């Protein structure tokens, strides 16, 4: 009897303490089902989304760990309480469309400045197609997801716009290049052909000056000299025209900026009443020295021309996101606003002599290098020409990359 009861008691203890062991041995099939259910239980318990089971009065009948964290209290306090009373009125259960078995909404909640976004799914439980009023609420914190989406959407829009601008720019460039090629061919032919008549005029003038009686008379000789000078002038116009319409082939190499500038300055005469301040750093840029020197010369000459009564030309350099920026600032007469846009056009000049190709060609050269040229000016105060040469990557690509980096930092 004692042995029998001991066995019974032992079995009972074993059963209650290790409630899986005995049943497992006694009944294998139902054990498997139980195992499955327990697995599900633990999944539900441990999952990151909060689950709340409610009855028809919106009272909490069950909840998982995430839900408890959301409430910040123990399950014992929560069970049986209405969700509104638990501070979860923001779930707005009644706003759900109860005609569907499952529906979801997005809700924002939290302290101002620390708001989180949630996706709330409401599942209703029906028995035999009759609503029981029992519901399950699944609450997911989608803040990070939402922010990431917003970030990428913004990036995408931004990049789209950038691409659009790029396409526009490239199309313009292509059209310009095509037009230039057509003009170039035409100009080349015209220019070359004009040189024949010029030769004839020049030859005739030579004869008149040196081999005919006309050369003896001083006034006639002056006239013939005038003809000669104008032949020169015409020829120069032709040269400029051919130059401008020629395709620019760059022969790039690492060039010392300071050296190049020095070369340019030493090759022209600096007017007596003009002071030149060269404040350029020791930089190397990947450019065609010959062409860039011409650009510098052109800008410097313009500066000198703008200061007929003396002044100062200051040349500085600095590195920026766009590349290496060179500024040429003069204290000259300045450029009136009305003609600011016109100065870049070919054949535009405010001077009596010269065709006015200078700035147009300069801009072309600089842009061919992938750079930019701009001007700022105030009448009576002076003018600043800025030339930017890209360093390394095409500056536009670099700028986009940096933008992406910055925004990414902010999202975190």
């Amino acid at each position: 009897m004692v042995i029998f009861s001991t066995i019974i008691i032992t079995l009972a203890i074993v059963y209650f303490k290790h409630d899986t062991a005995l049943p497992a041995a006694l009944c294998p099939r139902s054990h498997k089902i139980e195992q499955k259910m327990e697995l599900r239980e633990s999944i539900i318990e441990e999952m990151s989304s909060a689950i709340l089971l409610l009855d028809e009065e919106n009272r909490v009948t069950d909840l998982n760990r995430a839900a408890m964290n959301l409430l910040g209290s123990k399950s014992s306090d929560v069970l049986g309480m209405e969700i509104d009373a638990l501070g979860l009125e923001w779930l707005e259960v009644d706003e759900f469309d109860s005609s569907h078995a499952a529906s979801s909404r997005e809700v924002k909640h939290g302290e101002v400045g620390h708001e989180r976004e949630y996706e709330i799914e409401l599942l209703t439980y029906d028995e035999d197609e009759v609503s029981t009023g029992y519901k399950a609420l699944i609450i997911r914190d989608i803040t990070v997801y939402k922010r990431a989406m917003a970030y990428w959407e913004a990036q995408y829009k931004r990049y789209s716009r950038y691409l659009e601008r790029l396409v526009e720019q490239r199309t313009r460039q292509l059209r310009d290049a095509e037009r230039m090629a057509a003009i170039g061919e035409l100009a080349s032919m015209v220019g070359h052909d004009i040189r024949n008549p010029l030769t004839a005029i020049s030859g005739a003038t030579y004869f008149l000056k040196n081999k005919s009686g006309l050369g003896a008379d001083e006034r006639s000789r002056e006239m013939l000299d005038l003809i000669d000078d104008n032949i020169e002038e015409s020829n120069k116009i032709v040269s400029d025209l051919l130059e401008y319409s020629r395709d620019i082939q760059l022969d790039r190499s690492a060039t010392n900026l300071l050296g190049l500038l020095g070369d340019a300055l030493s090759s022209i005469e600096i007017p007596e009443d003009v002071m030149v301040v060269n404040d350029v750093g020791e930089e190397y840029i990947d450019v065609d020295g010959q062409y860039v020197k011409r650009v510098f010369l052109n800008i410097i000459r313009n500066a000198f021309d703008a200061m007929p009564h003396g002044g100062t030309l200051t040349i500085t350099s600095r590195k920026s996101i766009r590349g290496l920026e060179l500024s040429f600032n003069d204290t000259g007469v300045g450029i009136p606003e009305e003609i600011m846009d016109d100065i870049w056009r070919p054949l535009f000049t405010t001077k009596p002599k010269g065709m006015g190709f200078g700035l147009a060609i300069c801009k072309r050269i600089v842009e061919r290098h992938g750079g930019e040229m701009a001007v700022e000016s105030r009448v009576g105060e002076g003018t600043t020409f800025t030339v930017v040469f890209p360093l390394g990557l095409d500056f536009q690509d670099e700028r986009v990359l940096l933008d992406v980096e910055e925004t990414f930092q902010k999202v975190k």
Partner: protein
Amino acid sequence: MDKGWFHIFFKSIIPLLHSNYYHAKSKWQFTIKWVIGMTDPKILVIDDDKSIRKIFRINLEEEGYIIDLAESGEEALRKVENQRYNLALIDIKLGDMEGTDLLESFQEKAPQMKKIIVTGFPSLQNAIQALNRGADAYILKPVKIDQLLEIIEEQLRKQQEEKEFSEEKMSRFIEDRVNELETIKEYYKPI
């Protein structure tokens, strides 16, 4: 050869038949020069522009050159085959061909003739190409007559030097051969 009076008289008639006689500015000068074996340099001007041909002709004839004109590459080739010129002025763009195309044929038919290319393209490439294909010099349009005259003088001077040098070479060569022959004669004499 015995120079009898007939010979001298004959020589003074021939200039009248010589084509260059008609081109020469001073017939008297021409005759004298011809008699003593000197002739003015002959230049062929090849350009399809009428005014330029005229201008070059007038200005060059003033300097004493004998000028002949050609309008096209074809005409130029024909003329070069029939006559000898000291120098040719070739415009780079002719109606029927590029001036540079003529250079090769000229090199074949008249290797001594100096060839100057006249071009309106100041590119280095063109210059190098012209010189590579056999031009002796080039001048840019619009052409300044004084520069043209300088270049022509330079080329003719070179030509004269080359001629003298080759004449010298030739006479020295002949001298050497004659000496050789003399030595051989000496050698065989005793036999």
